[in-house]
């Protein structure tokens, strides 16, 4: 047959997708933004000699320049250091919340999606309940019960963050389990666990990863908002939200713009980077969703 003459090349899906991603300009830009900010946060001690928490009463409220590139706050703390060290915690909270939510969502979603039945019905109702309840209020209820702290914040994010992944994975499982290749597996007598984890799940991972980026971005924004109103991370710990907290007072907005502009932009750029990257990933991994 003529088709046999074609050159035989071993193909790799991962490589193909990687090249497609490289061609997406916004995704590359997003990744660069994300990467630069992330590296700056990780390498904070190399970039600034100051500590984010040390008070320096002789340098209170200094505008940017010289020793303090982003100025100092009213307690004399270096804003640049606070942005870098704060970024570590903010990103860590956002990422771990999103990861935890993803794992929970994937487990529950694949179970419900493959088996269906009453357990599935219950989880769908729970998901509906949690998603109708404004997340911010949920955080407040939790805070009333558990008190403040980074750990509690992450627990809350996981608790609210699994919903989107759950819906997505469940939906994909519902459609994928009807696909003929899954029926073929069942006709061969392949075990359910193998069908779920080795045959169906890999087909959901693209959208799940996209959702992970979306959730990470969303949680970083939420952490900032919560810390901004004093409901998030304890005020002693530097995070992007806590750093921007000073702008709550009207006077500071005009008199000390460097207090909030730098951390605000840091959040915006990082989240923007994550979102651009996530969008690019979606185009590559999940073209149908577009």
């Amino acid at each position, binding site marked *: 047959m003529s*088709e046999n003459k074609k050159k*035989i090349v071993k193909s790799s899906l991962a490589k193909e997708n990687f090249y497609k991603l490289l061609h997406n300009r916004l995704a590359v830009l997003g990744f660069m933004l994300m990467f630069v900010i992330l590296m700056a946060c990780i390498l904070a001690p190399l970039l600034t000699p100051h500590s984010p928490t040390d008070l320096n009463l002789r340098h209170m409220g200094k505008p940017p320049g010289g020793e303090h590139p982003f100025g100092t706050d009213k307690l004399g703390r270096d804003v640049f250091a606070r942005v870098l060290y704060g970024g570590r915690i903010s990103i860590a909270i956002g990422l771990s919340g999103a990861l935890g939510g993803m794992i929970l969502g994937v487990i529950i979603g694949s179970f419900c999606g493959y088996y269906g039945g009453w357990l599935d019905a219950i989880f769908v109702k729970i998901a509906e309940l949690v998603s109708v309840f404004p997340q911010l209020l949920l955080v407040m209820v939790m805070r009333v019960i558990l008190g403040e702290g980074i750990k509690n914040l992450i627990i809350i994010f996981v608790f609210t963050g699994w919903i989107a992944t759950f819906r997505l994975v469940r939906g994909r499982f519902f459609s994928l389990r009807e696909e*003929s*290749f899954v*029926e*073929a*597996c069942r006709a061969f*007598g392949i075990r359910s666990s193998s069908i779920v984890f080795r*045959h169906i799940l890999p087909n959901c991972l693209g959208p799940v990863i996209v959702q992970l980026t979306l959730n990470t971005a969303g949680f970083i924004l939420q952490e900032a908002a919560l810390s901004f109103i004093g409901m998030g991370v304890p005020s002693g710990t530097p995070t992007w939200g806590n750093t921007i907290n000073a702008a709550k007072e009207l006077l500071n907005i005009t008199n000390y713009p460097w207090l909030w502009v730098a951390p605000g932009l840091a959040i915006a750029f990082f989240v923007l980077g994550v979102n651009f990257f996530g969008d690019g990933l979606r185009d590559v991994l999940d073209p149908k969703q577009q």
Partner: protein
Amino acid sequence: MTESNVLLELNNIKKYFPITAGIFRREVGAVRAVDDISLRVYRGETLGLVGESGCGKTTLGKCVVRLLEPNSGSMQYNFGGEMRDLLSLNAQESFAARRKIQMVFQDPYSSLNPMKTIYQSFDEPIRIHSDRNKEERRELIARLLEAVNLHPEYMYRYPHEFSGGQRQRICIARALCVDPELVVCDEPVSALDVSIQAQVLNQMKDLQEKLGLTYIFIAHDLSVVEYMSDRIAVMYLGQVLELAPARSLYDRHIHPYTQALLSAVPVPDIRAKRERIILEGDVPSPADPPQGCRFHTRCQYCHARCVEEMPKLEPLAADPEHFVACHLAEERFAAVGT
């Protein structure tokens, strides 16, 4: 066709899908997809199942492969001379029996896992059903691909690199990788272009000859079914209305539905003078099938008995291989002549 040649015997198979409603998922009815079907499949033959969408042909096929659990009935399978009910096997026997019956699906595009290479898709079933080592498995896969006229090296490729016809041939090869006796083919060519259909159909015929396979061939296209099958069962609303060897079904179709179905098929031959029988209306819903004969709502010969009493699928007095479920079968047979 003797008793000992029976490979599979279906007795009173029923498959109902519940219809639920309300918050509490109360059962308000059932779609009677397969409603009391008894059939025999003989070793080495091709049994064609033909009917319009919603007649239950795919459901029946999936019951045979045990992708669906029938609500009632038995499926006796010939395990080397011993007939045993597939539905009452224990877990281990049931697993071993799976390699005897395989399926080829309608849509070649969704039949292969897009994330796995052809090799990966073949490897797992072979591994769990035999004790071949890695090298032997690779060899077997290469042989199977060659058997469907594909280059063995293709096993390292992903499904999206193949055309529809190639994929369907890969699917056929995959079904054969556990060395089955019975292959249920569910509309294997209806998703393919006309010029490709013949390639796949001929391929299937060749493989059947070479490997002594038995096929249950499901399709909505009567001409394709006729080309492939030794015997044909015509289905309507979950039941078999007529079952006969392909030739005699065409020459002496007895059931009014078969007659209408045959006459509705457009034939690419302008010399053929055919009288077309146009059925009125649509197929009734399988959730609420008519009482009595399933076909009476659209039958031009319908009379009082048909409305009340459901006819049984019985052999004709003159031709024991020709089964019809119609109260008028014998009269109509007499009219058609022999």
